[in-house]
């Protein structure tokens, strides 16, 4: 039982660390939850900032869902940190990033 608990703690700890440091490159289609996205008139800066990322092919902003769909050009990869920084710079709070393969 003790060994099982130790293994459980190690397993959880490893998962947590992976979640915090998962900065694997993004490719294909990704959906990003964006908190604070409550008004269409203020979303222009978000669109503009994300367009500046090299490799982003198109952007779709869904106000109702509070999310942004990024389509990354074939053969290109972008960094998760870059995306998160661009959202913060635009005045919003980034949430979870879902890769196409996650869905």
């Amino acid at each position, binding site marked *: 039982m003790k060994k099982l608990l130790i293994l459980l703690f190690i397993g959880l700890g490893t998962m947590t660390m992976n979640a915090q440091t998962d900065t694997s490159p993004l490719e294909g289609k990704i959906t990003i*939850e964006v908190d604070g996205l409550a008004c269409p008139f203020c979303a*222009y800066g978000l669109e503009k900032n994300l367009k500046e990322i090299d490799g982003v092919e198109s952007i779709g902003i869904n*106000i109702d869902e509070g999310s942004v769909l990024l389509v990354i050009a074939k053969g290109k990869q972008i960094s998760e940190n870059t995306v998160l920084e661009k959202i913060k710079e635009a005045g919003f709070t980034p949430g979870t990033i879902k890769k196409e393969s996650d869905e």
Partner: protein
Amino acid sequence: MDNDFFGSHNDGYKLSSRLLTYQVTSKIFLTILTVLLGLEMKAQGPPIFTDTPIMLGVQGRGVRTFGNIISKENAKAYKQVLVVPYNITRKWQVGTIVPYLSISPEGTSSSSGFGDLKVFTKYQLYQKDGKGTTLRGLVKLTETFPTGNSSKMPTLGSDAYQTTLSLVNGYVTTKYGIYGEVGYNIAGNNLPDNLIYNIAIGYPLLPQKYPPNQLNVFLELNGNYVFDDVGNNLFLSPGIQYIAGRKLLFESGIQIPLTDASPTNQQTNYIVRIGTRILIF
């Protein structure tokens, strides 16, 4: 204290008809407010007469211009205003407000020219975002410079350096939005200080989407209490706004006085505002 020409001292109160108007319009406002809060409201654009704490989109990367058609008991006036904000960081904004005035009093010669120039700075104090919601607040400092000609009547400026410190708050969700502003104006040059207070709610008539194609209606209360026993000015301000895509916004509203501290025969009949905001940066 936009313009001293229109008068700033209260001779007394006008009558029961104005009190009746106040009571009726208050009931209308409360009824509309109750109906709007009962509906499933969606987010809308920035209020027309009240400031917003959201320094994004046209509020941080654009210019705003509007014309005020002012009808007073003793004069007609037109005021064209250009507002240019600039975001230094996402939390810090500076800007300038340039007014051009034309005043035509009854029975005397008219005046036109630039009014008092204002510069302002805003700093966001807090921001709490959730899914489809944002709660933001900022502090705003506005300095008014006596650039308007005050040497001849009717005057175009206040002849006073004025400082206004305001707090602007807003809670916007995909279901409703409400904005509030409270500020203290130190008028200087022996003019009475005043307390500025504004509240606004809005309601969209079209489904929201991005790029925006929105038609919004607003209902606002805009007031300022003038100290030194002058009195309270309060306007009920309905308005309409059309957001045409990412970069262009048209808006119009009317301010109807509920209480007016101006002397008899100098009171406001109405103020009509027609304006646009254009995103350029």
